[in-house]
């Protein structure tokens, strides 16, 4: 209950802000020196929340299923892609981090490229990866690859920092026990890295959602929320509330993933005090 109240208050505030702006804002938007500084408040640009809710409840097409069902189903589909991409990305990130910690030369050689990888624009990468669909893997998996590509980065960088975090004294103690690299990794470095890992995983979760949605938009993968956003946005002319239902779905997906990732922490972090860490 104590947790739900602030969330409900936050939602209410957001709803009040939306409707408040609609009531007070200029329907044609506020333009200063030829630049629109505040968005239009008319019904085409910002439908009433009631209209959006009504749209959620009414059929997608005449005689079809209600929109909320379609949106929810799309969320589940994209959740699957996100989870696949997230897991694959996290595993790759972990392996890279361990390799970089183990071999200095790998860190020196690889880390710049790991960072460089995130500067490649997704729109350039997506068509390339989309081309693998149906040849190397089913089309949906190409979207998971895009999600993984975004998700591995925070894990690799955060985990590397975590694995390097034990003090020299700790490492020397392990050495005095004649513990090898593997044992030091399991007993000292992994536990020490956990406070760095979880914030990194949260970032990775968010990145995986973005990757999945953008990847779906870019490759046109059927069934997901990204595709739904683009399909509904084409109808924004005559049915402006519809595209907002898909956006609500995307927001819901983001919340679900964030919640799921933070739940991962519970069993592992129960006995640990939270440590303030900077991952990047």
């Amino acid at each position, binding site marked *: 209950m104590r947790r739900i109240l602030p969330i409900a208050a936050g939602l209410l505030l957001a709803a009040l802000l939306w409707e408040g702006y609609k009531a007070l804002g200029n329907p044609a938007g506020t333009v200063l020196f030829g630049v629109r500084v505040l968005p239009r408040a008319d019904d085409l640009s910002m439908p009433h929340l009631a209209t959006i809710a009504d749209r959620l409840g009414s059929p997608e097409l005449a005689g079809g299923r209600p929109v909320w069902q379609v949106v929810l189903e799309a969320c*589940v589909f994209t959740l*699957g892609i996100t989870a696949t991409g997230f*897991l694959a990305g996290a595993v790759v990130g972990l392996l890279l981090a361990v390799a970089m910690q183990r071999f200095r030369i790998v860190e020196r050689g690889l880390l710049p490229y790991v960072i460089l990888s995130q500067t490649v624009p997704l729109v350039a990468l997506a068509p390339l990866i989309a*081309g693998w669909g149906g040849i190397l893997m089913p089309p949906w998996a190409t979207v998971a690859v895009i999600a993984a590509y975004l998700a591995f980065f925070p894990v690799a960088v955060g985990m590397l920092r975590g694995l390097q975090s034990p003090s020299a004294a700790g490492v020397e103690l392990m050495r005095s026990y004649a513990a090898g690299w593997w044992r030091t990794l399991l007993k000292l470095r992994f536990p020490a890295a956990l406070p760095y890992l979880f914030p990194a995983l949260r970032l990775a979760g968010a990145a995986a959602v973005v990757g999945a949605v953008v990847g779906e938009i870019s490759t046109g993968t059927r069934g997901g929320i990204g595709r739904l956003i683009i399909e509904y946005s084409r109808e924004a002319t005559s049915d402006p509330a519809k595209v907002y239902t898909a956006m609500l779905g995307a927001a819901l997906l983001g919340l679900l993933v964030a919640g799921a990732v933070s739940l991962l922490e519970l069993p592992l972090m129960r006995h640990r005090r939270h440590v303030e860490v900077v991952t990047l």
Partner: protein
Amino acid sequence: MPRNRIFTSVAVTALLLAGCGTADQGTTAAPGASGAPTPVKLQLQWFYQAQFAGYIAAVDQGFYAEQGLDVELLEGAVDIVPQTVLAQGKADYAVAWVPKALASREQGAGITDVGQIFARSGTYQVAWADSGITKAADLKGKKVGNWGFGNEFELFAGMTKAGIDPGKDVTLVQQQFDMQALLKKEIDAAQAMSYNEYAQLLEATNPATGKLYTADDFSIIDWKTEGSSMLQDAVWANTEKLNDPAYQQQTVKFLTGTIKGWAFCRDNAEKCRDLVVAKGSKLGKSHQLWQMNETNKLIWPSTGGIGVIDPAAWQQTVDISMTAKNQTGETVLTKAPEGLAYTNDYINQALEAAKTAGVDVTGTNFQPTTVTLESGGA
């Protein structure tokens, strides 16, 4: 509850991963095996919609199957360029607009137009009826929306022809997917396809009356009457593979099935509408019927037979591609297309085959219907 959610997502992932491992097998059926249909992939320009109804119908009605082809339709997307997919060998044929495909050809894509399905262009520039904009010359001094990305050259050629310098005399605005900018009067004239965006306007509610907008609310500049229209949807084949007799035969068969599909949709517009809707289109039924009807208008009647490339229309497209400049001063092409840019060899054979099978390939008696659009296209 939350625990279940994690479990579900893990389970879903496991299932998906399991699917991943096995999906590659079995999809590559041996082509040309005795009696087995030859797999053929056709890359479309966009999601399933009535613009591609002829291909969808040819698959559904078995017109490709009777030619011994197992045709798979590949949907387009934001970042999928059909002619590139074709040139890379990931599809056997592609549907693409002529100017855009010619631009890709100039960049090295080895593709040939083997069937000009749309004989006419469906691009409009739509304005409010009370704006007084009825022809290209009226755009002077106005805010003109355009899509960019190579979809804008008919507009620029039309303005240039009317004595307007697109770089100076008009304010150019990049348009979104939808027509909201026109409805909000942010722009004076918006680019629209007769079969899609224009219909969306007529599916929107006029806040002043509470009823849908009507055709009387808008005025249309049709590039066909302005003389700056360019050829659009065509079937493109891989130029290099066209040297292979097997691919030549397959092309004739593919075009034969395609002709039958489009002839079927001319005579059974509502049935084809249903086929498109059944493909999972998110656009409503009345919208798809409108699109079917408008698409038919771009094909039928077809004096030379559907798909035959009219050299004069081709030349107009090439000329505009080389001369019309967009706002950044670019032209579609820097020089005339080289090599085999188009050929009527295969479509003529396919037309003969279709005629022999009793198909009306000219549609001389075609009459478009009047489609009533519902709110939101539903």
